[in-house]
């Protein structure tokens, strides 16, 4: 199911929480919303899931607008809100049945769906407990289970891994990856590695606008203007090494690394590479090049650059 978001805007009083956002998500795509707190990720999700009416713009799910077809859209979306609110006094199975009934799953299919969700989300050990008695990780699984109980085409997950331990995070990610093969998934996070690990595409949202849109590789490439190397050279003292490196035609800047005399970070001039020059320099001076590593721009840097 494709999602088209067109000029979506939400105002809280004077402040625009979401400001004219437009993007498109194709069927089977896993898209990650990335952004600092208060960037408008959750608000955007709340509008897509028909929880809140936008101040302007529209969202179309396979051609159906949230303004006119909210009831049909709600049936085909599974939503896990931020903080995973659940009825703590309900037993898991009862809660899943309740969710299935409300979502209009036919009565004779409900037991089957519940059994499937219990298995997929690994709830079997705890299935007779009340939700309030569960640990945070299990609650999160119940949240995922209720979102998927009616087998929706679109899954919208608002920070699905907050509060989980590393093992659980990896499990949930695996689950999302698996689901993403058949469904359209939008998830939000402010944890970069998570988005990178699970999503085909990343939307960086900042102050209610889309700051960047692309795969993690393209985003990195965009940000990576100049080549950056770390080198370790043996054979001369720090000062003369630095002077020699700066003397190279392609090098723009050389910085020492704290506490180590023979380590440097070398920044090249735009669109030029200094690898070969550094190697040649060492050879001609009979220095020993112990290490030369290219520093890959991390998504963190892209993120910081775009949102600061």
């Amino acid at each position, binding site marked *: 199911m494709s999602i088209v978001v067109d000029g979506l805007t939400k105002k809280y009083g004077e402040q625009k929480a979401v400001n004219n956002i437009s993007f498109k998500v194709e069927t089977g795509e896993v898209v990650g919303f990335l952004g600092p707190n208060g960037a408008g990720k959750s608000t955007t999700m709340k509008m897509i899931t028909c929880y*809140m009416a936008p101040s302007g713009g529209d969202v179309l799910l396979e051609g159906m607008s949230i303004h006119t077809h909210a*009831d049909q859209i709600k049936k085909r979306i599974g939503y896990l809100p931020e903080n995973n609110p659940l009825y703590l*006094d309900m037993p898991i199975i009862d809660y899943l049945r309740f969710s299935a009934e409300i979502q209009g799953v036919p009565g004779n299919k409900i037991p089957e769906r519940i059994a499937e969700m219990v298995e997929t989300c690994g709830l079997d050990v705890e299935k007779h407990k009340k939700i309030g008695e569960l640990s945070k990780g299990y609650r999160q699984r119940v949240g995922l289970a209720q979102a998927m109980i009616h087998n929706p085409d679109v899954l919208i997950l608002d920070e699905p891994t907050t509060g989980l331990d590393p093992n659980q995070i990896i499990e949930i990610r695996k689950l999302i990856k698996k689901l993403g093969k058949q469904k359209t998934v939008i998830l939000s996070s402010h944890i970069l590695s998570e988005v990178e690990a699970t999503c085909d595409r990343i939307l960086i949202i900042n102050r209610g606008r889309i700051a960047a849109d692309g795969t993690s590789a393209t985003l990195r490439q965009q940000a990576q203007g100049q080549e950056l190397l770390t080198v370790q050279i043996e054979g001369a003292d720090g000062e003369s090494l630095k002077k020699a490196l700066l003397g190279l035609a392609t090098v723009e800047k050389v910085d020492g690394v704290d506490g180590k005399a023979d380590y440097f970070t070398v920044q090249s001039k735009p669109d030029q590479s200094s690898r070969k020059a550094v190697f040649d320099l060492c050879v001609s001076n009979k220095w020993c090049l112990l290490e030369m590593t290219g520093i890959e721009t991390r998504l963190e840097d892209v993120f910081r650059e775009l949102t600061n």
Partner: protein
Amino acid sequence: MDKTWIIAKRELASFFDSLIAYVMIILFLGMSGFFTWLFGNNIFLINQASLQVFFGIGFWTLFFFIPAITMRMLAEETRSGTIELLSTKAITDWQIVGGKFLACLLLVMIALFCTLPYYITVSQLGSVDHGGIIGGYLGLILLSSGYISIGLFASSVTNNQIVAFLMALFIGIFFQILFDVMGSSFRGGLGTAMNYLSMRAHFESLSRGVIDSRDIVYFLSITLVGLLFSQSMLSRRNWQG
């Protein structure tokens, strides 16, 4: 209707799971039983085979108990955020409010049903006026539906249960007694309007066995207005600021 019933079923189950239902029924029976049979102007003092006394007591006990069962209905959902999960499922705000209303009304009806032994006892003591009994029970149910819708509205305004409880009582006290008092101290149209708004007069004529469509319309209108307000408060997230 179907979805409304699913909500109502869940709420009822949660009443009984959390003991609220038992506490409410026991307190209701205890209070109304005590005043009907043992204390003050009780049935034996009046020496008539009627449940007038019980209806008079029920009029007050329900006034206090209903806010206690409605207070958490929407307030708790907003506070814990479960309302977001609920309203993004295939259900309308009307069905949510309707389901919660239905659950509260059913709980009150269960409590009223438990007073059936009162009727049986009284009918053994002499010949009862069945019109009065039916009218009285109908009156209590209609009165409850009015107060439940007011309670739901109070619960939809705030996310604090205590505030919802006090607010429901505050709005309720106008209908319970203040409009009555004000009605007699104002003259002309205003006085008539206040008298009309008071629940007491409408309830009393019903509990005497006079089933008048005007009284029924009055209670149903209050219920409808209360539910309408609750629904629009619940949808206020869609309001454009």
